[in-house]
């Protein structure tokens, strides 16, 4: 299923950061993992992932290092920094709020606090 681009773009950062929460990964691994976790709902494109990873690394949310991958070759691994963890938590909180807000609107205002 192809999602509205707008929906994905806003949450890419959060998704990428959360992938690294459990452990360090390299680029290709992240795309696989994202697809696996979302049951193929999200297929992030390389053209989106790599610019994002590099931008996050530049802003010190991630660091990187070279290491031998399970395939036997050298790959560039990314790791979440403390600053990145903080950002992730912020994004998760933001998402939760957004998520509840959308649900509330869709449910017809059942949880609304005031009547018009």
């Amino acid at each position, binding site marked *: 299923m192809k999602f509205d681009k707008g929906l994905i773009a806003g949450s890419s950062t959060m998704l990428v950061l959360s992938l690294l929460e459990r452990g360090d990964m*390299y*680029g*290709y691994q992240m795309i696989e993992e994202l697809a696996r976790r979302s049951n193929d709902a999200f297929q992030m*494109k*390389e*053209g989106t992932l*790599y*610019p994002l990873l*590099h*931008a996050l690394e*530049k802003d010190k949310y991630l660091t990187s290092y070279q290491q031998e991958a399970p*395939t036997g*070759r*050298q*790959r*560039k691994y990314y790791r979440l920094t403390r600053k990145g963890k903080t950002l992730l938590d912020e994004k998760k909180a933001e998402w939760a709020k957004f998520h509840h807000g959308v649900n509330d609107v869709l449910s017809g205002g059942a949880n609304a606090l005031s009547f018009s």
Partner: protein
Amino acid sequence: MNDKKRSIWSWLDLATAGIRFKPDREAVRQELTDHLEDKIADFQRIFPDMTRAEAQDRAVSEMGDPMEVGRELARIHKPWLGYLWRVSRILVQVMVCVAIVGVPFRSNPVENLRSALWTPVQDAWERWENRAVSDVLYGDGQPDWDGERIALYSFGEKARLGHCTISVGRGALWQEGDGTSLYVELRLDYDRPWEAGKGVLFYFWAEDDLGNRYDYDRPGVGYRGEILEGIGWLAVNYRVDDVSPEAEWLKLHYMPGTDLDLTLDLTEVRP
């Protein structure tokens, strides 16, 4: 076979073309190449009857528009810091060469190097200790010292001359042989450290309230002991021989035409 390889390369080239600083470009290229390799290997694993060429084609096409990726990457990987780093490295290399060639251009380079490196340390220590030239006041460690100290002073006067602060610290009056000598801690702090020089010490002279002049070309006027030096400062025991015992004050002057007027009150003796 070569065409297919070329299509990978051209995708990679297009995608990294915007990254101007070469080492960065190479690094990103390597990361993307590795990614492509994994992708191709995966296709061959999932579709065993796909040829290598087909797998490559599919992999490249699934990577997306190289121009768009290229634009994004170019935006992130700005070359300026890379260029600056390169320049700084060249500067270091040049400086090291200059130092290696230039340092032996002095007699005793080892000795001078030692003093060049040691002086800032010594300077810091001197300031901290505020040692100045106290040994004269207490007569310590001077082999040719025989005499009796009559009085001790804390003058503490300061004056400005040129780009320099001249200060007078402690003083002592000694009876040596049949004359009295006054010793005063004299210190010069230059605003511009490279101007500091010991030659000035020869041009101070003094006069007292009785009208006596103690000119600098008179023997017995000058300094005694070591000249302490640091970065931009020097300190010495200024000495005036045969000071009249009835003198109440002494004024320190410099070359005629300059206005130095440091008054040393000889009546205020320290207990």
